[in-house]
């Protein structure tokens, strides 16, 4: 019988943890990316590293693709089982294994929800800074494999800056123990870093040790609005040039301001071309000093309005307004595509202008918001995937946006990953040589291509036509 591999897996994890009903397969056919839905052949929920080892061995023997899936919130078609096989879940590996207050580390299983990690460490006066907007839903395994970023990236960095060590099961069934609790560790190649951002294509993360820092004492929030994108961008540059590093430096364009204000009514200036939301954290005196300096810089560079939140409630409202950007835009159309083309900070104004021009040229509807502090923009397209003609124009517009980002010294994705969706564009960024080297690395870990096949690497292997 051809189905024996499923029976073998049932034997490993128990019947109740293997789903093959059509309804189950349909429920794991998607992630947060439109248009890549494909059913897997089985959905499997292992409880331990040992079980994963055994599952991988069975899959390797039968050449069955394995698609690791955290909460399926990625935006790059990273968990859609487009070549069938097994969707591997981690909800039974949801434990925080150790919070080490002496070494300032936390060791967790891959299925822990990121927000739960933050809560657990903050209760001890510690801080895990990477905060993707999806942190209340996404798993740490997903964050590590996408190298997710967040609002605090400018000052605190992204996920990769906090992963000290991982355990991973690779395609031959070996368990690799990379890194550990040591802040300094140069024993051989940095395999930990290789696994971070590997999108499930190199191995399955079964455990991770993360770095923690002390929790900042206080926070200040400033909102500044501008009548031109250039002025907002100039303010960003000057803040950085003045050696101030705000915890958060977020940008919202006019279309997004409109949508957010309609949705939240927090009183955003709808006549502005751009709004910056800036936060500083740290000891109260420094916080206050920094935020006033930043306010001064904003006013100097032509801000039409500036407002420092007087109360925590107001600050929360403003923060919420920024966080609801995607929601507010999503309500406006059947299909919403959130991209994350990224450019060096100095090129933000140029890039935002270019996005506007590209949208106009392709006759599509794009609003832009994002992390101005690190140049990570989120051009967001409101469309309808049933409209084939428009869909083609949307794809063309995004290709043009990626191309422009690269021309400006940027990249096709700052934090969402390549997945299957952006695999055609990877060569634009890393070149054919880059792809070839990555391919060789991939082969060293996974010679039979069973680990999340079709992701990162474009199927035809080559570049897309322009």
């Amino acid at each position, binding site marked *: 019988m051809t189905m024996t591999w499923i029976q073998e897996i049932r034997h490993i994890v128990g019947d109740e943890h293997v789903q093959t009903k059509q309804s189950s397969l349909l429920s794991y056919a998607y992630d947060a990316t439109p248009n890549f*839905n494909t059913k897997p052949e089985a959905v499997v929920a292992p409880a331990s590293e040992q079980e994963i080892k055994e599952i991988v061995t069975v899959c390797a023997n039968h050449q069955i693709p394995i698609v690791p899936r955290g909460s399926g919130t990625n935006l790059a078609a990273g968990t859609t089982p487009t070549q069938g096989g097994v969707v591997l879940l981690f909800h039974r590996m949801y434990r925080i294994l150790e919070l080490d207050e002496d070494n300032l580390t936390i060791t967790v299983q891959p299925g822990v929800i990121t927000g739960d990690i933050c809560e657990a460490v903050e209760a001890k006066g510690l801080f895990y800074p990477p905060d993707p907007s999806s942190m209340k839903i996404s798993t740490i395994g997903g964050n590590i494999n996408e190298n997710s970023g967040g609002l605090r990236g400018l000052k605190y960095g992204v996920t990769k800056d906090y992963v000290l060590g991982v355990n991973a099961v690779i395609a031959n069934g070996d368990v690799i123990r990379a890194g550990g609790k040591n802040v300094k560790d140069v024993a051989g190649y940095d395999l930990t870093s290789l696994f971070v951002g590997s999108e499930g294509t190199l191995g399955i993360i079964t455990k991770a040790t993360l770095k923690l820092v002390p929790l900042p004492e206080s926070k200040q929030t400033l909102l500044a609005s501008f009548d031109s994108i250039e002025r907002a961008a100039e303010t960003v540059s000057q803040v950085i040039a003045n050696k101030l590093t705000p915890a958060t430096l977020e940008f919202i364009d006019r279309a997004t301001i409109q949508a957010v204000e309609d949705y939240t009514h927090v009183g955003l200036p709808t006549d502005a071309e751009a709004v910056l939301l800036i936060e500083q954290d740290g000891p109260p005196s420094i916080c206050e000093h920094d935020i006033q300096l930043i306010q001064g810089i904003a006013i100097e560079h032509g801000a039409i309005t500036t407002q420092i939140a007087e109360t925590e409630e107001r600050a929360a409202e403003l923060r919420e307004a920024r966080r609801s950007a995607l929601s507010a835009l999503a309500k406006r159309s059947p299909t919403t595509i959130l991209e994350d083309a990224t450019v060096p900070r100095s090129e933000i104004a140029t890039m935002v202008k270019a996005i506007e021009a590209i949208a106009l040229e392709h006759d599509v509807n794009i609003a832009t918001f994002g992390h101005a502090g690190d140049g990570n923009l989120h051009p967001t397209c409101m469309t309808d995937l049933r409209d084939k003609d428009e869909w083609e124009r949307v794809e063309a517009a995004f290709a043009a946006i990626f191309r422009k980002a690269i021309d400006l010294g940027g990249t096709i994705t700052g934090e969402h990953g390549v997945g299957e969706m952006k695999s055609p564009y990877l060569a634009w960024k890393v070149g054919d040589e880059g792809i070839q080297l990555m391919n060789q690395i991939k082969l060293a870990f996974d010679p039979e291509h069973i680990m999340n096949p079709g992701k990162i690497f474009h199927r035809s292997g080559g570049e897309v036509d322009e």
Partner: protein
Amino acid sequence: MSEAITQAFQERISEDDLLNCMKCGFCLPACPTYVETQDEVHSPRGRISLMMAVRDGEIDDVHEVEESLNVCLGCRACEPACPAGVNYGEMLEEARAIFYEHKDVPLQEKALRKTTLNMLFTDQEKMGKATSLLRFYQRSGLQKTARKLKVMNFFPDHMQQMERVLPDVPKRAKQHREVTFPSETDQTKATAAMFKGCLMDTLFHETNQSTITLLNRAGCDVVVPDTQGCCGALHGHSGKKAGAKELAKQNIQAFEQADVDYIITNAGGCGAFLHDYDHLLENDAEWAERAKAFTDKIVDFSTVLMDLDFPNEAALNIDQQIITYQDSCHLRNVLGVADAPRQLIQAIEGAHYIEMPHADQCCGSAGIYNLTQPEMSMQILDHKMENVDTTRATTIVTTNPGCLLQMKLGIERTEQTDTMRAVHLADLLLEALSTEDLNSD
């Protein structure tokens, strides 16, 4: 069969609404059945993709989808959590209606639904009779005998516990006819018509009286129209839409005559369903506008009490105790009422309010869900009671009869009947009022 269902999905569930779900997963932590199972088959986006699969004819056995929808509590916690504004509740109701129309309900469940729905809920007269029977059973000593003989042992555990928590049924005579209860303040501040609700009017008759007294005390005239019927929620939620529409029309008519500022409910479940009448009748030319006028007036009594500044109007006192609040899903997620009940409890002197973790999550009662999906319902309830216990509360307050019964059941299951009680907000407020204030001015 499957084809007919697929066709009905195509005709009645809009592709736009289904596509509006971008599968972002933001609803996952809000959904009690996903939290319990960690299975996307039981998540909002999973259910939406399954409805889509039925619509597209991509699933052979549509009953797998029906099963997923049956396990859904219909609590609609996924709606406020959803960035894209997906109308989950509407799609769910339509899908359930389609399945109901196309399928033989299992015999046992059919019997259950038939008695609870047709016999009891459509007709308050019958509801009265049935509860009279229950009353007879309780008062006659039959209940004691039955308990002694352990007749209930033949029923599943939770049914037995359920039987123990049913409140005593008040005498028939107490049930009111069209009456007006005048405001007790110098000036009438507002006028209201009270929606009685079938469960509230029978099993929880006292609570309706409390509600009226509180409103009077807050300066509100309250009239109770006598031609009103059941809200139709239990029909709508279990897929019998036609019956629900008939009830809606009857109620709209009954309340149109009252000509008041507010139409008051004290049962979150009914309130939410009444609030959706405009949607229920949107395609009915004759009724659409009348339904809209009706739904615009629907409010929960707690909102009105806060609007009329009741906490400052009355002195509220109670013996020192820790109190926690369990949201009624529909009150919170559909009517958007979350603060008013909490503010009212906190206004009582002697009440130490402690919020329980996940107070906003469904208790697992969900209409007749605790009868049709006992396992999931009890699993959710047991987790709920763990959350209650963290507060050390001795009083659990709710704003919906189903939740009230379910919380009583939780207290019974955890064997805490001696130290813990569950009460409706209106009864708690009346208790706080009656010690000093009732006849003071």
